[in-house]
């Protein structure tokens, strides 16, 4: 009996398996092991975490393959890696390397200011960021098999992730209440494929898994976005820019699972050491905001 690879079900299916879990940014094999031991459901292999990309500036590209390879060999959980927006060749290379998910990410410097990667061309699944429902549905229309809020990466400030998550989920609730004849207009307003808009309006949910990313720094942040309706959490700089990464990583994993149990949250929130310092997004000049990359 013939087997089919890279089907929609297989691509979206891996994201289903990550639900309720924490995906952690790591830059070395050692960090990847710490993440795995803490209970991460996957890791994102990077050269620099977003906080460092922000600080050091320059062009941020796909990570060094030797580094990604080293991380892939050091853990048994899925390994994701980032390509630049629109850089389909970086994506081809990551697929050839065998990473489990490609994140077409605004954290790296965009390679194309008009087009995202045509993700239907690939066997490897893609996760993409969104700040609102229209953006999320455009990415799904291009073949994304998983969506995450963008938040404002590398700030340790949850405010933008909350804004994006509320926007996406609020707009889904609004669509769900529309009459069928109103959906063509809604699709036009959202600048999203009508077929996907109809699907979301009918089911009241995205056709793919929705994670939260961008600014999660504490167990309480993770529980907050889970209670708001995220299906899992990406933690970037929040773990390895904190005082005690192993302890914090473990606490964020537990807070994600037991997000609605304040007694567990109170327990895991103790004795974590200093969180990452963080940045106030309100005082940040527009050109430093990563979430505006992509459209």
């Amino acid at each position, binding site marked *: *009996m*013939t*087997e*089919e*690879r*890279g*089907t929609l*079900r*297989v691509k979206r*299916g*891996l994201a*289903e*398996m*990550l*639900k*309720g*879990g924490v995906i952690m940014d790591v830059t070395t094999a050692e960090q990847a092991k710490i993440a*795995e031991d803490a*209970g*991460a*459901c*996957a890791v994102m292999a990077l050269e620099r975490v977003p906080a460092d990309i922000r600080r050091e500036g320059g062009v941020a590209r796909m990570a060094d393959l030797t580094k990604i390879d080293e991380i892939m060999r050091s853990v*048994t*959980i*899925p390994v994701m890696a980032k390509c630049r927006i629109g850089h389909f060749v970086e994506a081809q290379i990551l*697929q050839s390397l*065998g*990473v*489990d*998910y490609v994140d077409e990410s605004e954290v790296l410097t965009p390679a194309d200011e008009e087009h995202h990667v045509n993700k239907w061309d690939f*066997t*490897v*699944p893609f996760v993409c960021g969104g700040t609102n429902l229209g953006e999320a549905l455009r990415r799904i229309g291009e073949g994304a098999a998983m969506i995450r809020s963008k938040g404002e990466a590398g700030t340790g400030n949850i405010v933008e992730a909350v804004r994006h998550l509320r926007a996406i989920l609020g707009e889904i609730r609004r669509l769900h209440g529309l009459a069928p004849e109103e959906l063509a207009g809604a699709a036009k307003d959202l600048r999203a494929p009508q077929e996907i808009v109809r699907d979301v309006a009918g089911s009241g949910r995205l056709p793919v898994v929705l994670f939260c990313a961008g600014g999660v720094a504490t167990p309480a942040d993770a529980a907050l976005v889970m209670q708001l309706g995220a299906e899992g959490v990406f933690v970037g700089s929040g773990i390895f820019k904190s005082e005690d990464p192993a302890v914090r990583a473990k606490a964020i*994993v*537990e807070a*994600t*699972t*037991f997000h609605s149990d304040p007694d567990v949250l109170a327990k895991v929130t103790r004795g974590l050491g200093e969180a990452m310092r963080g940045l106030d997004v309100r005082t940040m000049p527009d050109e430093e905001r990563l979430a505006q990359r992509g459209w």
Partner: protein
Amino acid sequence: MKIGVLALQGDFEDHRVALGRLGTDPVLVRTPDDLGGVDGLVIPGGESTTIGKLAVRRGLIEPIRARAASGMPVLGTCAGMILCARRVVDSDQPVLGLVDITVRRNAFGRQVDSFECDLDVGGVGRVRAVFIRAPWVESVGEGVEVLAERDGRPVAARQGRVLVTAFHPELTEDTGVHAAFLGV
């Protein structure tokens, strides 16, 4: 019969929907207390090392073993199969040991090798089977009935009232495997 779905991490909601299609109203299990209220348990797909660690931290390993030993039906899919196994090749991750099998994790490869295919499953019939970074069964002990094979490796098995699959019946509309579980 009240069915519980272990809800520490993974696609537990998909199992809840699949079981709902068969007219049951499953509950989510996160603590030993939750486990006390159910008559059968589904261990979902997900990341087996994550689920295993959380189960250890929440003191769920021994209570699940005790319940299974006294005859509670268990269905484990993918990560759930790994957790139900007695041994995992090249790993010391926590397992429940409910079925006398040795499993190999990610045996079919990484995500780019993940696939779906038609599969004949003993006692169920032909199903659309979705394999995601899937394990296979490396060896089986006495009393284990192999229900399906792929590439010459067991990918579904049963011992007593514990049913395990390397694939994800919860990702398709086909409720055959869940119905077989409810019937054990």
